[in-house]
């Protein structure tokens, strides 16, 4: 599949997730139980990107020792929990990562 076809299909499926509930489906079809479960979608899917990017090396094997990303991500998570700020989380993580790889 060409890159453009891939982009267009991804766009289509994304648009459908937004449009379908607004235009096609009646609200009653969406009970509280389904709503409740859908509210967990970010917590269920974002870790699938977060964890491998932190714990796996370039070849895909698990790397625990001598891995600055783990410490930096922990610092970012702690800052995030206390500040509740998206910006503070990202920048504290990047700053600690750079400190660990360039300074320490």
């Amino acid at each position: 599949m060409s890159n453009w076809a891939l982009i267009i299909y991804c766009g289509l499926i994304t648009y459908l997730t937004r449009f379908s509930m607004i235009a096609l489906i009646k609200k009653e079809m969406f009970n509280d139980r389904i709503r409740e479960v859908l509210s967990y979608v970010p917590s269920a899917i974002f870790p699938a990107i977060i964890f491998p990017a932190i714990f796996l090396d370039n070849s895909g094997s698990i790397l625990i020792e001598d891995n600055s990303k783990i410490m930096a991500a922990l610092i970012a998570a702690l800052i995030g929990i206390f500040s509740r700020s998206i910006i503070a989380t990202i920048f504290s993580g990047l700053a600690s990562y750079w400190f660990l790889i360039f300074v320490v």
Partner: protein
Amino acid sequence: MKSNLKVFLKGILDVSPLMIPVVPFGLIFGVLAIDVGFSPLETMGMSLIVFGGASQIVLLQLFSGGASSLVIISSVGAVNSRHLLYGAVVSEHLSDLKLIWKIIISYFLIDQAYAISNEYLKKNKDHNRYFHLVGAGATCWVIWQSTTFLGIILGAAIPEKLGLSFAVPLTFLALLVNDFRKFINVIVIIVSGLVATFGYNYIPFKAYAIVAGLTGLIAAMILTKMIKTNE
């Protein structure tokens, strides 16, 4: 009743604080897209056609890992399935609108616009209240397109040694900060993260994001049910 323009401007004003974190997110996306081998035009096209930050970064991540197109498209769909919820919630405010407006508004139904406009729609009963959502969505659109563009330009100037790809897990981590305080969410996060990490090499077709996401959702279903029966 306020004029359409006033409601539109109110949408812009209300969503503005939420735009601050979108700036680094858009820059990172632009830089990474070039890095994993998309052309500047394709990168811009992605932001215009998909217009969904988290899913676009998932797309890049899986693309660079060599996942098949089918897996990439379904993962993007899975990441964006949360929009089903947004659509269902705002649909009651949009039911009187002409189809053309529903088509336009759907394009702008993104996280930040939903979060801010849903509050306004709940409190306001004017017929033109949906202009708030259009204003908020259009603001996000301008920020997302311009930061993608800047990222494409900056990409060439940023040295690889900085390890900017680490900004991807950090960005997603940042999107979950409010969930770290909730018990069920923390369990769901750990379950999904472990399945993805240990399944990365074993789950076929690089479908680890979908498998981990579904496992996490099943965990959420079981846990919410358990807590309800205990009450």
